[in-house]
Each structure stands twice: as C-alpha cells, then as structure tokens.
C-alpha cells in the first residue's frame, strides 16, 4: 500500500511537471496534448473505480493548480469521466487499438468541451464551434495517439506494484 501511494504521488507530480514544461516543445499548431487526461483514461481502464476516482481527482486538481485559475473544474470533469470508464473496464478489450483510441478521444472531447462551455457560458458561446475545431478536436486526436505510447509502460508499473503487494501479503500471512 505504501509503495502504491508513493508511486501515485510521484506519477501525479511528474505528469504535472511534464504537462507544464516538456509538452510545450511538442505543440502542433499551438495545441499541446493533455498528458493528465491520457493518464486518467489509462488508470480508469486498469484500476478499480475507487483508485481511478482518486487518481482522476488528483490529476484534475493538479491541472487546475497549474493553470492558476479557478480550482475544481478540471478536478470535477476528470472525476466524472473516470468513474464510468472504471465501472466498465473489465468488460472492455483494454489493449485493442479501437478501445484505447475511442475512449481517449471521447474523454478528451467531453472534458474539454465542457470546460470551454463553463469558460464561456457567461461570456459568448458563439466561439464554441471555433474552439471545438481549433483546440478540442486537435487535442483529442493528439491525446488518442499519445495513449499508445503510455498505455503499456503504465500497465507494467501497475503490474509490478501488484506483484510487490502480493509478495508482501504472502510474507505477512
């Protein structure tokens, strides 16, 4: 359990650091992928609803804190997207191209469209189609590609943590 908490904290901090710095280098047409959404989808696919929910909340709140604006919107959206994925994850062929691609695509579209809606609801919603075409859609495509690079390494790390847990449980028993 201790290893699991430490590794979760390291994952959240590292991804927050990468999101605010290194991902700037791989921006295409001014749009950068959202590593935190990708990790939320991966963890929701691999873990239980409770663990996924906690991790999604942590990733979302980190995103809010890094942006320096209102805290909580991304936390809420990440959480709400993570729960349904984690509830059905055992019924999915998790490593199939189509599952990974479509889930990341839909998750990004949902989170970013709702965020844009929240952002402009009291200003001017006429910008929504423009924002969807120039930010939400490219980011969704970008994230859907990024998940193929990250899914297996993250799965391996969780597999390793599970093995450590099992060994420790066996020893204590």
């Amino acid at each position: 359990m201790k290893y699991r908490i430490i590794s979760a904290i390291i994952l959240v901090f590292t991804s927050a650091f990468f999101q605010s710095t290194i991902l700037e280098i791989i921006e295409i047409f001014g749009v950068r992928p959202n590593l935190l959404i990708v990790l939320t989808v991966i963890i929701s696919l691999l873990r239980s609803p409770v663990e996924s929910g906690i991790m999604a909340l942590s990733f979302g709140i980190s995103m809010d804190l890094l942006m320096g604006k209102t805290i909580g919107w991304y936390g809420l959206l990440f959480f709400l997207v993570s729960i349904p994925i984690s509830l059905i994850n055992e019924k999915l062929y998790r490593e199939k191209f189509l599952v990974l691609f479509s889930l990341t695509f839909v998750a990004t579209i949902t989170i970013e469209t709702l965020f844009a809606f929240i952002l402009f609801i009291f200003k001017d919603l006429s910008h929504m189609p423009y924002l969807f075409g120039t930010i939400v859609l490219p980011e969704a495509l970008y994230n859907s590609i990024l998940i193929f690079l990250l899914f297996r390494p993250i799965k391996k790390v969780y597999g390793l943590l599970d093995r450590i847990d099992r060994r420790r449980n066996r020893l204590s028993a």
Partner: protein
Amino acid sequence: MRRIFSNKIVIVALIIVVLLILVIVSHNERSGVNSVSNIISIPAAPLQKAFSFVKEKVGDFFGYFEDSREIRAENAELRQRISELEQEVLNFDKLQKENKELRDALNFKDQYDEYDFIGCSIIAKDPGNWFNVFTINRGSKDDIEPDFPVVTAYGLVGRVSKTDLVSSKVVSIIDIESTVSARLSKSRDLIVIRGDVELRSKGLCRADYIPPNADIMPGDIVETSGIGGIYPKGIIIGKVVSVISNEGQYDSYAIIEPVVDFKRLEEVLVLKKEASGSLE
C-alpha cells in the same frame, strides 16, 4: 450514518459538492484557498527552473549553427550602424543634460519612481490550451502580490494573478480573461484592450469601446491609461494593426499587435509599488 457513507452514490455526490464549493471559493484570486497551489508549485518550481534553463541552453546551441550565416550579413550592417550611432550619442549626451536641467527646474517626478522593478524568469507556460498564463520564478516570499503589473523593456506583458510562496502566475494581455484600460497615444481617446479567443493564437488582442469620433488608424500606438488602478499610466501596449468599423456607436473595434512577443518571452519585470513610508 455509517450506512449513508457506505453508499457509493452518496460518496460521489459528496465529492461533486465539495468540488463545486472549491470552485466557488477559489474563484476570487485573493482567496486563501488558492494557497493550496503551493502543494504543486513548491516542488515543481526547481524542476521547472531547471527545465527552462536546459531548454534555453539547447536552444542557444542549435541557434548558434542556424544563425551563423545571418550573423555575417548582420555584422556588416551593424558596423555601418555603429558609425551612425556614435554621432547620435554625441547629440544624446547634450539632450540628456538639457532634459535633466528642465526636469529639475519643473520638479518633475518620474511616474515609475514609486515602483521597484523585480526581475523574473518565466519557468513554465500554461499547461492547457485555453489560457495565456505563465509562471514566473518569484512569489510571495519576494513580496509579489496579485495585480502587480508585469512589463518588459518594450512594454506591457500583463499582471500577476496568483502568488505562491516561490512562484507566481501571470495573466498576459492576450489572455481571454484579460482587460486593460488603454489610451491612443496620438488622439488620447480612451479604449479597452481585451484578449480575444481567435486573435490570441496569433499573439494579437483587440481594442473595444472605441469612441465613434475617435481618430484611430493602423500604426497608432496604444498605451495604458492608468485608469483602474492596476497598471501605471503610459506603458506601451502595442500598435493598431487594423480598424474594423461597424455601424453601431461603440461597435467598431481594432486589432492590436502587442509590442511584446509572447512566444519568445523569457524574462519579465514585475512592478512593485514602494511602501508609502519609504517614499518620504
């Protein structure tokens, strides 16, 4: 009570309610809740500093090879310019002396005398794709506070929106949530500079509330008006690129090109108002 909390739907609903309360409370930039961002910013700041340093050095290294051809041509041009400037320096010295004498005679107080300039480096940019916010390497321990103006040698960058212990967030003038009261340098007409959803990706912003009879044309310089209490008067914002005239009284707007290149911005200055006691 125990049975209520064992219900998963209740727990999810509770989390949603807590998050919504957090949204409401943290909406105010000066809210104490925002200090939780120290959890991320304190450990991230040294890493972000290290990354921005490495990025700069790598950029310099590759830039060296790219620039060598350009440098040769520029060198010849600069030699010519040096001889012209040497002549201008002689005139400048004379004008400077005259200026000082006149200022002394009028007891003129420089508008920036009451400000301390705090040099800062940009250590991280906005992590998402929605805002034009960046992180600087100084925070509340350096006496930086929200709403302090941020400038470069060329002109206005934006304002500090939130401060953590060792870093601060700066909202640039092209951000969609930024509004600056401004003035046209030539005609002295008051306008409002705002970030625009479509223009921000090009590094531009827009001028609204242009008076119907305002004398405004491409090339005009725009500066801060000093109204609103955040930005001191007279800081250059940018120049008018084009004016879009509409029939309504205040429906015309202009596209403004800021003097600051936000894509290449690395160092900024935060203007800190000196305490009234120290002015005496």
